[in-house]
């Protein structure tokens, strides 16, 4: 009797694994083209041209691409240490948002009271502290009582969103719930207004890479992630590692909030983070938790989203089409990981094996 059998394969050479991923992306683009053509009866080639145009078409678009990649990468860097430890931090959305909220509060209440350099320092401390608090609460409960962190962090997102909604309704005096940007209190601008963000994230990428690959703490994170029992056996204090890692994770989320609010928007709304806390999970996972690969994966996702937005404008399609395309492409990328790790072989009959 012949059957199909799944076998784990030897690690693939780098080039070949990239090739498999490329094939998956091309396949997903083909399927998206079919979907778009069916829905709109437009030539799919024109659609891809418009996608590339939307991502790179003008200087403004290039800047916006770089800025979006930077922010998404920053949040992905934040969740990575936790993920490497198999702590499923789905709460980046909320952690970034409270970081931004802390930043906005400092701008609003201390903006005219403190000299500018002090203000910037206070803003940084407030954002980072808020991010840490939001991340460390689930971590503490995980460490003490093994409370499910995925569900806990998810719920914390909505608490954060409601907190921002409350803040906007309570402190915005005209009752519109929309806070006017306070550009005069933003982070210092170097050249283009996005450059500071991009540099900060670039530095962070290097730091996180070194932290995970070259430090004792980074090593402890991977041991706890691989097997908690091994970690205990070799004398790692697992509880301490969990809490410490989430402090790091929350701090970087706080920085992302700082960059988003203090560096770019100078205001806040409940959609400031715009689902990037969740997208970051995919960016980090697709890059196998490697900060350098994450540059590519976050670029890929932002390119797709910016491109798809352009498609919907050019062809007068609803904006939703970009979410559908992103979803399809993600399914393919997620699915193709299987073929990198396993191969399907036809198994021989039972008798022969015996």
């Amino acid at each position, binding site marked *: 009797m012949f059957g199909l059998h799944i076998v784990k394969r030897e690690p693939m050479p780098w080039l070949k694994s990239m090739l498999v991923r490329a094939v998956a992306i091309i396949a997903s683009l083909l399927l998206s083209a079919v979907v778009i053509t069916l829905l709109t009866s437009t030539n799919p080639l024109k659609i891809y041209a418009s996608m590339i145009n939307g991502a790179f078409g003008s200087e403004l678009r290039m800047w916006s691409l770089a800025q979006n990649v930077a922010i998404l990468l920053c949040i992905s860097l934040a969740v990575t240490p936790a993920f490497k430890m198999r702590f*499923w931090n789905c709460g980046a959305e909320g952690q970034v948002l409270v970081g931004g909220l802390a930043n906005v509060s400092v701008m609003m209440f201390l903006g005219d009271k403190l000299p500018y350099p002090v203000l910037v320092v206070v803003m940084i401390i407030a954002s980072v502290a808020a991010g840490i608090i939001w991340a460390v609460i689930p971590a503490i409960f995980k460490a*003490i009582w093994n*409370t499910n962190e995925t569900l806990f962090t998810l719920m914390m997102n909505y*608490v954060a969103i*409601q907190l921002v909604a409350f803040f906007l309704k309570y402190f915005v005096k005209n009752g519109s719930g929309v806070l006017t940007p306070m550009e005069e209190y933003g982070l210092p601008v170097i050249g283009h207004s996005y450059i500071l963000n991009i540099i900060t994230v670039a530095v962070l990428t290097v730091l996180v890479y070194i932290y995970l690959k070259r430090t004792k703490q980074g090593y402890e994170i991977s041991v706890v992630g691989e097997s908690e029992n091994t970690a205990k056996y070799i004398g790692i204090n697992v509880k301490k590692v969990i809490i410490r890692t989430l402090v790091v994770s929350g701090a970087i989320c706080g920085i992302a909030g700082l960059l988003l609010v203090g560096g770019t928007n100078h205001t806040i709304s409940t959609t400031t983070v715009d689902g990037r806390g969740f997208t970051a999970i995919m960016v980090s996972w697709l890059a196998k938790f490697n900060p350098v690969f994450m540059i590519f994966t976050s670029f890929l996702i932002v390119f797709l989203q910016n491109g798809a937005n352009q498609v919907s404008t050019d062809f007068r399609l609803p904006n939703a089409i970009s979410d*559908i395309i992103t979803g399809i492409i993600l*399914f393919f990328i997620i699915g193709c990981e299987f073929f990198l790790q396993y191969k399907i072989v036809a198994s021989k009959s039972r008798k022969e094996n015996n």
Partner: protein
Amino acid sequence: MLAFLISAIRLGMTFLFGSTGETITEKSGHLNLGIPGVMCVGASCGCYAEYLYLSQMREMRITASPFLAILIPIVATLAGGALMGLIFSFLTVSLRANQNVTGLALTTFGIGVSDYMISETGPIYSKGSRYFTEPLPFADELGIVGEILFSHGVLIYLSIIIALLTSFVLNHTRIGLNLRSVGEDPAAADAAGINVSLYRYSATCIGSAIAGLSGLSFIMDYLNGNWEYCIDAIGWLCIALVIFTVWKPNLAIIGSILFGALYIVSSYITGISFAAKELFEMLPYVVTIIVLVFTSARDSKNSQPPKSLGLPYFREER
């Protein structure tokens, strides 16, 4: 007060579908974070089917049959939800992908599908909604009791029936026992001859189909057919409700009414500011966190998440 109670039941029962569906899924060890997307797609399929059916009937100048006007969207919703569940289980079981990542991608996709559908047909389905909000015929004759218990649309009773049925199957049948063992310890279940993949596939598909009804019920019943805003927030509430009711669908009947009440309480309290309302809307999530912490701290055997929740099972990697 009466209006508040009726409204809480109406909203709560829409949550009940989602939480029952997610409970079935989670009992198999799958944490499907794509539930918001599943609900969006389910509701889209249902609303679109209703839209097609009613416009077809109008063209042919036939009066739409109320029975079909309810049945067709329900079947379409079940199919849409099950299809999403199939995508999820194909990626996580057959292709061994990470459940969290797959679920989140599913949510992105589902929200896209529903937004697209709304922009195609317009967000108003009040014609179809009429059939769903029709109360039971004898509601008026029974006074206040009748108004609380029997004045609702057909989906609300369906949700209670499904929840009770699920509870029975999970706790009193062989299939339920097998399913729970798959969620607790898939390796042991596999050794006992249970087809882990089959159970995970079917539990996820059935669960997603039921969760899809949550979206349909929210749009057609609670919102009277006005799809004004994205319904994904409701999906996260359903996941919260599963934890809140410690993975017990029969408890979820009461829990969902409480959640419904918490969700709308701010609109019924007079004399509070708009800002305070936002704080009230935080309540369901805060309550869920408290329950989550409390159950994990108490460490009682009856109220734990399935032990292998969110974990993959590959026979070769034991």
